[in-house]
């Protein structure tokens, strides 16, 4: 019960929501790889009378995690050899991994109403909700994250305050330049990232790349300036479990191949 200033949250058992969660977990269990550490999370919520479910599988092998139902994707990534010794080369963000960079540099910054920076004119970063209603009962609305904050209010549980949060970050390019650098680092998987609204610094912990694991840290303006090209349609990245204010939420992620230099 939410009266604006005060939320009264009482835990109750809702059979319909429980059944929806159980069904979602049963589906996920079919894909569990017993040779990996696997975390299954299913949530069900009813907003404006509409039942909505979320389900995620996080697979961890050798300390590297992806949000995916296919452990083979992670195994293939972990087999990529380290072939570059430097981490100061241009970076080619492959497999949709640029969505994680822009999740931090654009979407989180938008959540914090950060001042604008000059992004390339060919770049679009959108929030594209995949559900009918947000967690405050409003019809889910998309957003142009370069120009405005996410429009959806989300909460991890009935115990939490709904916050303006991204839902599904889709990065697109329109007639972007693209040239593969002579020497570069190919990034395939990201372990995590952060945006600090106080310093405007974006941090990305790369888990799998041709230079091995390393940390990418730049101000948002530097990230914007470093985006020198992109190619193709958005590629769906395995997914992101996004934590803000202690509330963990799954966020969809997709981006074309992109180059920072």
């Amino acid at each position, binding site marked *: 019960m939410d009266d*604006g*200033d*005060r*939320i*009264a*949250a*009482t*835990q*109750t*058992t809702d059979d319909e929501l429980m059944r929806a969660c159980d069904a979602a977990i049963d589906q996920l269990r079919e894909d569990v790889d017993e040779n990996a550490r696997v975390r299954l999370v299913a949530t069900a919520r009813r907003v404006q009378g509409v039942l909505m479910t979320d389900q995620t599988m996080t697979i961890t092998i050798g300390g590297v995690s992806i949000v995916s139902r296919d452990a083979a994707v992670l195994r293939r990534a972990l087999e990529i050899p380290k072939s570059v010794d430097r981490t100061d080369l241009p970076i080619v963000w492959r497999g949709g991994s640029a969505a994680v960079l822009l999740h931090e540099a654009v979407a989180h910054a938008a959540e914090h109403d950060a001042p604008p920076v000059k992004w390339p004119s060919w770049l679009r970063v959108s929030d594209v909700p995949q559900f009918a209603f947000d967690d405050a009962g409003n019809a889910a609305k998309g957003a142009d994250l370069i120009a405005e904050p996410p429009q959806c209010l989300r909460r991890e549980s009935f*115990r*939490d*305050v709904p*916050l303006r949060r991204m839902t599904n970050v889709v990065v697109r390019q329109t007639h972007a330049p693209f040239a593969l650098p002579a020497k570069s680092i190919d990034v395939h998987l990201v372990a995590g990232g952060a945006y600090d*609204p*106080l*310093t405007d610094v974006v941090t990305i912990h790369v888990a799998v790349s041709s230079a091995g694991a390393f940390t990418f840290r730049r101000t948002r303006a530097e990230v914007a300036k470093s985006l020198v090209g992109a190619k193709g349609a958005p590629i769906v990245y395995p997914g992101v479990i996004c934590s803000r*204010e202690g509330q963990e939420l799954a966020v969809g992620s997709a981006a074309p191949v992109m180059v920072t230099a």
Partner: protein
Amino acid sequence: MIYRKRGCVARWEHGRVVVVHEAGEAIEERGVFQVRTVAGRIAGATLEDVASVANALRSVNAERLVVSHGVAEHECDGVTWREETRRLHIAITHKHLRALVDRAGFELDEVARIASALTRAGAERDAPARIRLAPSVAAALLPHLAGVAPPNVRLIQSGGGLDGNGEEIQEVAGPPWRNVFRPSYRIRPVRMPLNLRLECDVDVIDRDLPEAVALLAPVAGLMLRVLVADGQRVYPSTIRVTRIDAVGHERAWYPYAAGAFGSEIML
């Protein structure tokens, strides 16, 4: 083993009060840990006005403020106990600096002192050769000293009270840690040291030394990013803890890891 918890909490967060009532049980059998909700509410719990605590901090430039007061009843294998918790988390900002403050009570004088010091902070400086850590800073360091504490100090789990399985917390001076921490019925209890404290044969603290009055970032191993007050001069700095020269006698409990008693430390 069956563990049950009934509780309620009032929490101030994002300018709103959230009052939560919940009850659940956790059953661990044959390697499977399962939790579910149970009926019923905790009886006789009166929650404090967390909004008034938050309002008292209106003048502080808080990037994040969470104030909570909770009451819980626990039951585990026939043992029942009740506990009451107060937590204050505030991230105070000034320019590019952020001071992190975590307390187990609502005494706000120290928060005001840290906020005042932060506004006087100058440019980054090297850490002084010798420095004092305020009890709150020292408490945050304690969980990171497990296994790496210098030989002249003793890191001890303080005895008293009950752990997450309703067993008595033993006074223990090192691993193996036999007690468990269970912050929620939804979380499988973890063996770890509870209510740590640090002891040293030397307890004389030189009060003329600069003092690390607040954390500017979460503790990372033995690296502390702190706000240092040296007379009228205040500055951010980074300390690497390589030795501990003295540990003060007076202690206060802080909500770091599974609890830590902070006392003044001289490096």
